[in-house]
């Protein structure tokens, strides 16, 4: 019961923070994620991953002899709130770096703030390609873009899944539209035809109309860009209508919650994700164990994202041997980090490369890795 726990802890924390802060200095990192609103569910898992990373680092003695302190603010995926959160974190809490803000639109709003105040901003989730095309030297993206994902997997979809007539379905926000646009571009370049392209509003509960259209379109495969809430209903209702079309999803489709919500109807669904708990690197096994033990469920894409970002920042602080923003920014450009899903390095635009993307197929409730590729520069 978070309500009961948070109130006394919050009050205690506030009073303790006042005394403790003066007693012992910590390195503060600001985390802006949606904790309320429609993507709160995914935002919270991201924060969970970040907290796990911070605690692990602190258990090993922290960074530069000090403990890392995460200050989490609710950006609600709204630009205005995210900017307010960023202002508060930078001005009042004096954070050395920012992590966030989940939705590309919110991150877009936070980027000028980071640039103005010269504080590094690292995101582990926002995938709109335009973010790294703005020439903002203080912004780093530790995840794939829709374009990179499309380029990596279009070939597999075309050659191995033999998709020739594709239906594109996306949630009507920057993530859904971006994903659909990129994949369509790549697939068409390879020779596939688009038989349907539709968007649905986030929060749609009834997909029957959309699914009826899908059935009537004669597609041999459907590309779906959606998050857990919408994607799970879509998959369930697809099974209810007895539609056999192959489905290939991007978003958080390989998470344990998604599988729990969809049950048997998730059988055979493909998903392209930058992280799956079933990835077989030794680093991942350790991460999965630690996360599962603490949060009683397997980590998903967003948990790994939050985890990676904090680790990258901590390592950069270490490398810079200071928390001076300019030195920190320099150090970030030299990142060479081994995360649960591969090796991360940043190119000159702040885009990460070198990490792994996997195509999984959900079989008996387990995301089985079917193919994997590394993100190229």
């Amino acid at each position, binding site marked *: 019961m978070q309500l009961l726990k948070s109130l006394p802890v919050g009050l205690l924390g506030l009073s303790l923070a006042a005394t403790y802060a003066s007693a012992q200095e910590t390195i503060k990192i600001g985390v802006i994620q949606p904790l309320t609103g429609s993507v709160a*569910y995914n935002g*919270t898992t991201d924060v969970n991953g970040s907290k796990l990373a911070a605690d692990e680092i602190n258990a090993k003695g922290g960074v530069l002899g000090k403990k890392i302190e995460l200050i989490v603010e609710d950006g609600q995926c709204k630009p205005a709130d995210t900017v307010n959160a960023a202002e508060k974190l930078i001005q009042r809490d004096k954070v050395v770096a920012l992590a966030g803000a989940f939705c590309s639109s919110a991150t877009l709003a936070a980027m000028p703030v980071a640039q103005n105040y010269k504080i590094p901003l690292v995101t582990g989730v926002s995938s709109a390609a335009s973010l790294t095309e703005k020439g903002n030297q203080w912004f780093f993206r530790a995840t794939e873009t829709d374009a990179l994902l499309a380029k990596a997997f279009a070939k597999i979809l075309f050659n191995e899944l033999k998709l020739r007539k594709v239906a594109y379905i996306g949630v009507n926000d920057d993530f859904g539209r971006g994903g659909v646009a990129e994949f369509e571009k790549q697939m068409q370049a390879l020779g596939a035809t688009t038989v349907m392209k*539709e968007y649905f509003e986030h929060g749609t509960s*009834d997909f029957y109309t959309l699914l009826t*259209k899908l059935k009537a379109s004669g597609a041999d495969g459907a590309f779906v860009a959606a998050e857990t809430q919408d994607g*799970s*209903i879509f998959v*369930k209702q697809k099974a*209810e209508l007895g539609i056999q079309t192959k489905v290939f999803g991007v978003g958080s489709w390989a998470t344990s919650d998604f599988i729990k919500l969809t049950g048997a109807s998730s059988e055979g669904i493909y998903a392209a994700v930058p992280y799956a708990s079933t990835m077989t690197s030794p680093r991942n096994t350790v991460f999965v164990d630690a996360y599962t033990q603490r949060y009683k469920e397997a980590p998903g894409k967003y948990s790994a994202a939050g985890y990676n970002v904090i680790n990258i920042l901590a390592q950069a602080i270490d490398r810079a041997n200071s928390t001076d923003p300019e030195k920190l920014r320099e150090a970030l450009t030299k990142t060479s980090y081994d995360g649960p899903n591969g090796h991360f390095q940043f190119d000159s635009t702040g885009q990460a490369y070198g990490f792994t993307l996997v195509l999984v197929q959900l079989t008996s409730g387990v995301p089985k890795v079917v193919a994997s590729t590394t993100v190229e520069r």
Partner: protein
Amino acid sequence: MGLFLQLLANGIVLGTFYALSALGLTLVFGLMRVVNFAHGELYVVGGLIGWALTAVLGLNFFLALAIVVIVLGIAGYLIDRLLIAWVRGEGEEPTILLTIGLSIFIANTALLIVGTTPQTVLSPFLSKPLFLGPVVITQSRLVLVGLCVALIVGTYFLVQKTTLGRAMRATFQDPMAAQLAGIRTAHIYGFTFALGAALAGAAGMLLGSIYVVQVTIGGVISLKAFVIVILGGMGSFAGAIVGGLILGVVEALWGGYVATGYVDAIGFALVIVMLLVRPYGLFGKRVERA
């Protein structure tokens, strides 16, 4: 033709669900002139309790439904007696504001208690596809449509044929005269709101078994309910049903033949047109108090 039939079937099923969701709202408005902005949140709470009872405690579906109806009825009664009663004589605006505040409070407190994970209500009905000619549907949907119809018919009998229903209608027509006739209007208002809340909660639980139960959808539900209530006429029973069916079918056909992106806008466009042409809805009665 097959496509059309499937879309039509989808629309009718959807429309029935919409009708049940909007019924509570229209009754509360028709009998009490209260626009309940917390309607969507009551729906969500019904779904959450339904989830807690069936998935967490493992109770029988129908037993859980009965409990949801009772719990939300009591909650509705208390909300009316403890909150709305304070502002009852002052016109519509205070109740709108009050229910908006209530909706914010319920939505966020529920979020704090339950968290953000989407859940479902466990029902004993199957979700395997049933093929009726060119139309595909599931057993659970058919049963739910039946349950919705049963609830709607039950409410109709409650309002039209029972003493309580007569007392409700009398209080609406003229509260002073009703009091003179010996009706305890304070209780009646409470019961009416309780009825609205119970219907909202029941809809939330029933629909939560085929869709998803999540705290954040309250606003969307309220909005859709408003659209239906305006289309059909505020306070009109038949209006909610017809309005719901029309909205469901139009959305399905538009989404199927044109584009699914703008589907939500249809409802609003219909409302705007309706308010220009027939402001009081298809079945509304024009009542004006100077």
